């Protein structure tokens, strides 16, 4: 098996990298793929809690690269989906506890047994970021429609490309259609016009994300939610399917439909 290693990165913190990694990993596993998630945010471990796997950790990423255990011994099996595994970050170590070459070697080993290796990058452009991108074949950039996040995304795109990861993909997270419509939020077209990279997906701002993170259950399990459906669609696109993008329609009828609960959620969330 020759898996694909994809790094999920953003530059700016707090735009939803970890949530995106958790949902894409879970979504791809639900589509029947063998997936391993690597939390590369050493010292600020979080993917484990978002996945609800924090109580199962025995070994971590640093112990694996230091040879204290075999990679497979450190993988935590997901409790809900088959073929989904997590390699947690070390919590009590520094970002420079691993080197890019070690990351490359680890990812190459994991590629033999998995279809997808998703690497959750730390924020910033320093050591941890460089480790995270070093083993990847391609990159997904996560941004929100805010000036600060888009600016950092632009910088990250430059860095990722100079590292040989050409044609990174973009996910625009936390879009609020009603704000876009009244001209108070950058639209998808605005963001694409500025960043000029390929769009992989649009994830609407959704309170369900908070709920699902509280529970440690990625929202992609519930495709009745707008964000869950959005992540599901992104996973299908990663798999090569041509899935149309979300229409940012917040017309009266749709809002009324949603209000009355006539399947509006499911239908307009792509």
């Amino acid at each position: 098996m020759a898996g694909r290693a994809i790094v999920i990165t953003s530059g700016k913190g707090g735009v939803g990298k970890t949530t995106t990694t958790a949902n894409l990993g879970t979504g791809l596993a639900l589509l029947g793929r063998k997936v391993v998630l690597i939390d590369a945010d050493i010292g600020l471990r979080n993917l484990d809690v978002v996945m609800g796997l924090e109580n199962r950790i025995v070994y971590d990423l640093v112990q694996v690269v230091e040879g204290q255990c075999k990679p497979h011994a450190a993988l935590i099996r997901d409790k809900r989906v088959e073929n989904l595994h997590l390699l947690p970050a070390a919590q009590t170590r520094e970002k420079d506890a691993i080197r890019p070459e070690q990351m490359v070697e680890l990812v190459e080993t994991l590629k033999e047994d998995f279809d997808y290796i998703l690497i959750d990058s730390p924020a910033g452009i320093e050591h941890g970021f460089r480790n995270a991108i070093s083993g990847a074949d391609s990159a997904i950039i996560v941004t929100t429609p805010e000036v600060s996040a888009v600016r950092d995304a632009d910088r990250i795109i430059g860095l990722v490309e100079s590292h040989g990861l050409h044609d990174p993909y973009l996910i625009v997270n936390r879009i609020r259609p009603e704000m876009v419509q009244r001209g108070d939020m950058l639209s998808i077209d605005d963001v694409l016009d500025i960043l000029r990279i390929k769009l992989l997906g649009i994830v609407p701002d959704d309170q369900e994300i908070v709920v699902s993170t509280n529970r440690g259950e990625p929202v992609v399990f519930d495709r009745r939610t707008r964000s869950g459906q959005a992540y599901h669609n992104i996973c299908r696109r990663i798999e090569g399917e041509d899935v149309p993008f979300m229409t940012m329609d917040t017309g009266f009828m749709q809002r009324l439909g949603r209000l009355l609960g006539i399947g509006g959620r499911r239908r307009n969330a792509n």
Partner: protein
Amino acid sequence: MLGYFNKLFRREPSSRTAKERLHLVLVHDRANLSPQILEALKEDLIEVISKYMEFDVDSIQVNLDSDESTVALVANIPIREVKRQLRHANS
């Protein structure tokens, strides 16, 4: 209603302000060339311009100049002499 007020007070939508500000800030960010790239650019410029005129290579200055609304590449190239064949061609 909100749109009406915006029009009344001639306030543009904040998303447009955001986009304009981003465009500008990214011009600055992206133009932040490394000294090596600037040096390479300078050498290429010398190669091209020396086809047409003679100048003092050591006194050439190539810099990025930016103010609030624009970023410009400013090259200061003191000319010693314009090459003869070029003068003939012009006259």
